[in-house]
């Protein structure tokens, strides 16, 4: 799911739910117009037909990201059709029972430059299973490799402001994703 926001007849992709490669600026729905994302990163949307489309008139908006002078990577595409609550309820149900999120502990947030007056975003903190990583334009480094649930709970609090109560902490016990 993503959102399209219209301001003065201009439409923009606005997505706060993708994670580390998500758009940190609104991206205009203008095919091949390039905008800045994080430092040394550019973003664009393209209005294109996919190789999978049997209908020659089908088009989607493809969101792509480029870092430094590297290649463009297609991250996701969306259909330019307004969807309603019941459509997302179906996806939500599938996510709860089938998706990779149901199998993997993932937490991510962007990091703002505290010294910039408009709090420019400059990187990400990412917890993937037992690894805590910091990603900036210069590097991606593993800050910590967690060995126990206590360590992971502490990291959730320290780096993501997430405080889990005892019942929540205990709920992972015995599951494959438990750190032990």
């Amino acid at each position, binding site marked *: *799911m993503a959102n399209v926001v*219209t301001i003065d007849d201009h439409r923009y992709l606005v997505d*706060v*739910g993708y994670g580390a490669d998500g758009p*940190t600026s609104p991206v205009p729905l203008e095919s091949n117009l390039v905008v800045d994302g994080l430092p040394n990163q550019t973003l664009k949307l393209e209005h294109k037909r996919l190789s999978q489309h049997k209908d020659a008139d089908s088009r989607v908006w493809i969101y792509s990201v480029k870092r430094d002078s590297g290649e463009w990577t297609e991250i996701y595409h969306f259909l330019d059709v307004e969807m309603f*609550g019941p459509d997302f*309820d179906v996806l939500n149900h599938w*996510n709860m029972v089938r998706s990779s999120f149901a199998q993997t502990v993932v937490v991510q947030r962007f*990091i703002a430059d505290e010294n910039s007056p408009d709090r420019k975003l400059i990187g990400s903190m990412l917890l993937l299973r037992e690894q805590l990583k910091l990603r900036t334009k210069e590097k991606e480094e593993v800050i910590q490799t967690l060995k126990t649930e206590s360590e992971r709970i502490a990291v959730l609090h320290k780096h993501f402001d997430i405080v889990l109560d005892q019942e929540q902490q205990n709920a992972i016990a015995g599951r494959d994703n438990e750190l032990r």
Partner: protein
Amino acid sequence: MSIFLLQRLNSRFWTSMSAYCAEQVENYFQHVGLTRSSGLKPSFDLLCALLRHQLARVPFECLALHYSTTRLISLDAQDLFKKVVEQSRGGYCLENNAFFKYILQSIGFRVTSVVCRISNASRGIYDGGWRAM
């Protein structure tokens, strides 16, 4: 899963144009570190500021599928507000984008929601394929 629980989870407030009252919007502004919200009108600059502050303060997370006895996720507007603002949590893409849509609409922005497919390329598999999430 009981039918009553399923009904509770289904988003009954999707059609509401202003899911959150002024006090809730103000609480959200404080939560993400923005100055007061009253009197603000939709604009591109405000949208950019909201986006930056939201992304830095509200994490992407799927902990509700791991550190939870129910492992159920609600897209209801008030449930999302409690989770994000009052409980200082985040959510996965549907939760965070649904929540942000309610915030934007409550300020007066014109927002529609779209469905996405994720590229296999984003996971390093360059086969031209796409998946639901």
